[in-house]
C-alpha cells in the first residue's frame, strides 16, 4: 500500500479511532473501578469453587476446569458491561449519542469502534484473571488461539450489548439485561461444570450458546488440545447476526 492510500484509509476510518479514543479515555478515568469490577466476582468464584471446595473433574484438579471457564466468562462480562452500561447511559440519560448521530462519522464505524473497544475491555478483564491465577494454574496453556477466542467472544457480547441497549427503554434496563442474560449464562454455559452433565435437549441448547463454545475452546487449548472449528463457526454466526442487528438499528430505528 502506498503512503497516499494508507493516509486515505486512516482518514476514511477515523470514526473508529474516535470511538476507541473515547473508550480509552473512559478506561483510564475509571481504571480502578473497572479493574475491581473485573476482579471481585471471578475471584470469589475461584476462591469458593476452586480453592474452598477442593475437588476433581475428569481426574484433573477442578481448578484446571474452572480457570478457563472463568477466563471466558470474564471476557463476556467485561465486554458486555463496557458496552451495555455505556450505551444505555449515553442514549437514554446523557443523550450523548446525539453528538455521534449528527456527526459525519459513518455509524457503522461507531458500531465497529464500540465492538472492538468492548472486546478489548473483555480481554483486559480476562487478562486480570489470568495474572491472578498464574501461580495456581501454571500448567494450563494460554496461547495466541486462546486470546483470539477471548477477543471473538468479547466481540459477540459487545454486539449483544449494543442490540440490547438500542432496545432499552429506560436506564434501569441495562442491569436487568445483565440479570436475565449474563448471570444465567455465567452459571450454565460450561463455566463451573460441563454441559455434558445436562439433560438431553437442554444440553444442546446451552451448548449452542456463545459462552459455552468459548469456554470449551479455551479449556481444550489450556489442556494442550486443539480448539476445533465448530466453536469458531458458532461464535462467528452470533457475531454476524448481532452486528447486523446493531447496524440495522442504528441506521433504521425511527426513534433513537
Amino acid at each position, binding site marked *: 500500500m502506498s503512503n497516499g492510500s494508507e493516509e486515505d484509509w486512516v482518514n476514511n476510518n477515523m470514526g473508529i479511532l*474516535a470511538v476507541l479514543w473515547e473508550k480509552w*479515555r473512559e478506561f483510564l478515568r475509571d481504571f480502578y473501578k473497572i479493574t475491581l469490577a473485573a476482579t471481585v466476582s471471578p475471584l470469589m468464584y475461584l476462591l469458593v469453587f476452586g480453592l474452598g471446595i477442593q475437588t476433581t473433574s475428569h481426574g484433573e484438579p477442578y481448578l484446571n476446569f474452572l480457570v478457563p471457564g472463568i477466563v471466558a466468562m470474564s471476557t463476556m462480562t467485561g465486554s458486555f458491561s463496557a458496552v451495555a452500561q455505556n450505551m444505555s447511559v449515553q442514549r437514554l440519560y*446523557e443523550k450523548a449519542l446525539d453528538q455521534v448521530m*449528527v*456527526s*459525519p*462519522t459513518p455509524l457503522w464505524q461507531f458500531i465497529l469502534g464500540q465492538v472492538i473497544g468492548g472486546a478489548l475491555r473483555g480481554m483486559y478483564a480476562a487478562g486480570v484473571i489470568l495474572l491472578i491465577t498464574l501461580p495456581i494454574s501454571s500448567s494450563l496453556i494460554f496461547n495466541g488461539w486462546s486470546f483470539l477466542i477471548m477477543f471473538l467472544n468479547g466481540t459477540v457480547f459487545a454486539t449483544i450489548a449494543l442490540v440490547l441497549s438500542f432496545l432499552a427503554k429506560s436506564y434501569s434496563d441495562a442491569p436487568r439485561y445483565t440479570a436475565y442474560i449474563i448471570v444465567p449464562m455465567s452459571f450454565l454455559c460450561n463455566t463451573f461444570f460441563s454441559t455434558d452433565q445436562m439433560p438431553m435437549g437442554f444440553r444442546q441448547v446451552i451448548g449452542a450458546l456463545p459462552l459455552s463454545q468459548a469456554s470449551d475452546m479455551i479449556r481444550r487449548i489450556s489442556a494442550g488440545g486443539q480448539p476445533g472449528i465448530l466453536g469458531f463457526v458458532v461464535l462467528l454466526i452470533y457475531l454476524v447476526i448481532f452486528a447486523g442487528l446493531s447496524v440495522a438499528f442504528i441506521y*433504521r430505528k425511527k426513534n433513537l
Partner: protein
Amino acid sequence: MIELRDLTKRFGDFTAVDHLDMTINTGEFFGFLGPNGAGKTTTISMLSTVLLPTEGQIFIDGSPLNRKASEAKRKISVITQEFSMRQDMTMDEVMEYQGRLYYMKKKEIRQKTDELLKFTGLEEYRHRVVRHLSGGMKRKLMVCRALMTDPEILLLDEPTAGMDAISRRQMWNLLRQLHARGLTILLTTHYIDEAQSLCERVALIDRGKLDTIDTPQALIEELGEFAVDETAEDSLRSTYFHDRNDAIAYLSGAGDDSVMRNTTLEDVFVERIGRGLGKQ
C-alpha cells in the same frame, strides 16, 4: 439551504410534526416559534437525524439528509435543549471527541479548543468534568462544541433556556457574530423577544402544523403596528391598529388604565397561536 418537504413525525397516534413544508435560505437567521408540544424539538431532532421522519424529507443544499449522509451532516452542528454530552468527560475531552468525530487533525483540535474556550471565558475550567459545571457553563460548552467544526448550519434548540439575563444577552451577541460570518442559523425558542431581536424570518408552529412564516416586521404589520392595552378586572385586552391616529382615537375613549404601545412579535404569537390554544 435547508428544505423541509412534507415533513411529518408521528409517535403512535400522536402527530408531533404535521406535513411541514418550508425553506430556510443559506445565511438566514430563522426562528421556529411555537408553544410547548408544538413540534419544535421534534423537528430539530429530525434535522440531527436522531429521529427519522414518518413521512417527507429534509434536504441540505439539495442533498437528502439521512443517517448515511456524512457530507450533509458535516455542514451541521446542533445545540440541543438538553446538555447532550458525556457527563464524565472534561471540557477538553468533550472538545477533542467532537473534533475526532469530525475527522479533525489533533493540532487543529487543540488550536480550536484553545480559541473557543478563551472566547467563551471557559479556559480556566477546561480540566473540569462536565458533571461539575454550572448550567450556564454547560450551555457555553455546547456552543463551543458546536462551533468546533466550523459548521455552515447551526441548529439551536432553546439555546438560552435557564440562562440569566446577562448570559442571555451574551449569547445573543455571540449568535449575531456567527450570523454575520455567514452561518445559517435555525433557532427554536420560547422567548419571543429573542426571536424578534435575532431572526430575519420566523415560522409559527402550532400542534405540529405551520401557521405562518414571514419576517417579524411583516407579521407585526399584518396585525397592526399599534396596540392599545385595556385592563378590565383581572384580564388584559389588547386591540391592534394599522394607523397611529386610529389607535390614539381609540385610546381617548378607553379607560384610565389603558396604554398605547408598539405591537411586538409576542402579540402576533398570542393572537395567532394563543387564541387557538384558548379555543381547545
